[in-house]
């Protein structure tokens, strides 16, 4: 450590302005991108306080104060989409973390390396399946060809249960989406946990085996507690993102199916729909700003907690 800083010191002193210029040139494309596509839209948020029209443009349109926010809060949709966002994200987060944790503990039991690698690749794959494809699969399961029931209804009829028209029944959708999320993220999360498991010393297990611990005992009393830091980080990161719905998956599945909105409409899908159908930029931007600000509070809190818990893995 001492030597390393010494080397850095030497390097720092040797850095000429010309070399710095060359390095800045390297960074330039990235800097420009951030200015245009990350910071530009932040400046564009002024639209939230304006009565936007295309002719006058972003900065020329007249101001209308907090009118846009008032309109959104009075529309009656605000509570519904905020609650949906929080509930769905909480469900997604806990289900995928639990599935990932259990899968990792169990994958760890599988010793045959070929089979293990095969299973691991298989359960990891859904992570790379696009939301659109997921939506098509789900339609096959829930609606079937030309609305002829689908796989799930076929099963229900086998065990003499009434058929359900899933795409017009909002009630079960939080659970359906949660299952989709587990399908999509279970394997992915388990890989993260498995990486943490491999760093646990083999000695601990040998000692436990000498004391007569069963594999169940080891998984529950050794591996699981040692995974808590990883779990903590993932929970904190997830809670930080809790105000941002998984727009792509939800919108790909629900589309503009109004009957499902009561349980599936989240902030992002709402924003997108009002942008496309209503075309009211001011109000939509106001909702976006509201989301960004509340989201920022969550993310910052999460980062602070993470830094306090785990200084090593923090970026800043």
């Amino acid at each position, binding site marked *: 450590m001492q030597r390393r800083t010494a080397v850095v010191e030497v390097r720092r002193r040797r850095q000429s302005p010309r070399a710095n210029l060359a390095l800045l040139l*390297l960074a330039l494309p990235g800097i420009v*991108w951030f200015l245009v596509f990350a910071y530009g839209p932040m400046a564009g948020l002024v639209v939230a306080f304006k009565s936007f029209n295309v002719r006058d443009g972003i900065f020329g349109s007249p101001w209308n104060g907090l009118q846009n926010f008032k309109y959104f809060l009075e529309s009656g949709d605000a509570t519904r989409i905020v609650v949906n966002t929080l509930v769905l994200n909480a469900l997604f987060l806990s289900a995928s973390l639990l599935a990932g944790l259990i899968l990792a503990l*169990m994958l760890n039991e599988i010793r045959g390396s070929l089979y293990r690698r095969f*299973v691991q690749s298989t359960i990891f*794959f859904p992570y790379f*399946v*696009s*939301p659109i494809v997921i939506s098509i699969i789900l339609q096959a399961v829930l609606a079937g060809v030309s609305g002829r029931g689908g796989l799930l209804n076929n099963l229900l009829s086998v065990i003499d249960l009434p058929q359900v028209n899933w795409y017009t029944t909002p009630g079960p959708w939080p659970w359906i989406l949660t299952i989709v999320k587990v399908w999509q993220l279970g394997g992915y999360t388990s890989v993260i946990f498995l990486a943490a498991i491999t760093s646990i010393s083999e000695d601990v297990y040998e000692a436990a085996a000498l004391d007569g611990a069963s594999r169940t005992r080891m998984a529950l009393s050794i591996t699981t507690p040692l995974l808590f830091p990883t779990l903590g980080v993932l929970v904190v990161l997830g809670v930080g993102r809790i105000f941002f719905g998984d727009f792509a998956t939800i919108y790909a599945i629900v589309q503009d199916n109004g009957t499902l909105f009561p349980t599936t409409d989240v902030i992002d899908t709402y924003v997108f729909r009002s*942008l496309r159908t209503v075309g009211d930029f001011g109000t939509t931007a106001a909702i976006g700003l509201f989301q*960004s600000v509340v989201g920022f509070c969550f993310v910052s809190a999460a980062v602070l907690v993470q830094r306090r818990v785990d200084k090593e893995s923090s970026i800043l």
Partner: protein
Amino acid sequence: MSTIIGRNQTITDLDAEAVLTGRIPVESAPRRRPGRRRAEPFTVVSYVVVSLFGLFCLIPLWMIFAGSLTDESTLASKGYSFLPHPFSLTAYAMLFSGQSLLKGYIASLFITIVGTSLSLSCTAALAWVIARQLPGISRPLTIFSYIPMLFTGGLVPLYLLVTQVLHLTNSWFSVILPIMLAPFLIFVAVSFFRQLPEAILDSAKVDGAGEMRIFFQIVLPLSKPILAVLGLFYAVTYWNEWFMALLFISDPGKQPMQLILENLIANVANAASLPGASAAQAAAPIYQLRFAMTVLTVAPILLAYPFAQRFFVKGLTLGATKG
């Protein structure tokens, strides 16, 4: 067929069961010597649960594949089956004879290849400058790249930027540019660059190599593993991207694969128009076509997957421990 779903359903039950069995105190278990052990209950349960979850992940994809090879009238009357029977290549034949598929692939490939190259070069360059820990440059740049992870302008300003300011509507760059850099991946690259041996860089400097030369001729060749990881993550993101295309690309001739698929969901009737105009296709096999299109969209990822998978796992691990 019902057995398939039956299996799927029991997964959740088994998960719960595994948790329960885990909670049962095991004090009563007989002491065993380490070394040669009989298969323990937990291990057996693990094999079963993990295999079932594997099936749960695979079967939906297989059903789509089988569906794409099954005659539409059979699909409609008997539903899905495990093995395509009667076997039918109609949907694929129609797709390959039409223009949509080729155009979709061209659009998707352009977005993926050009996008990944741009993303990768900008990410590596910016990350290298951050990783150099230059006084007065690196830290401001870190904060500059970090803030967008905390706060975003949201959809509306981005939409206005692309359509009103940059006028990129119907250009493939309207899909590439908004998602070109992922701050998270920049920091993954930074943490890799920081591990490069200092000695090599210093000796290059002593030999008179300039900053550009160090970056292109020493750093990049040493960083092939991380570049592969980042490139693959970016490539999958671009290939799967449909939302930007939905917002900005309305010209049917320029739509990427994912958006063509999206149109098939949004409007089943669109499927009829998919395989190029032909009067004989009054009763186009809509569902079979939709499945075939899905297969063709997933296929490139599936083909690359066996080779790429280890990189993904590596990248994830890196992100998880250093992110």
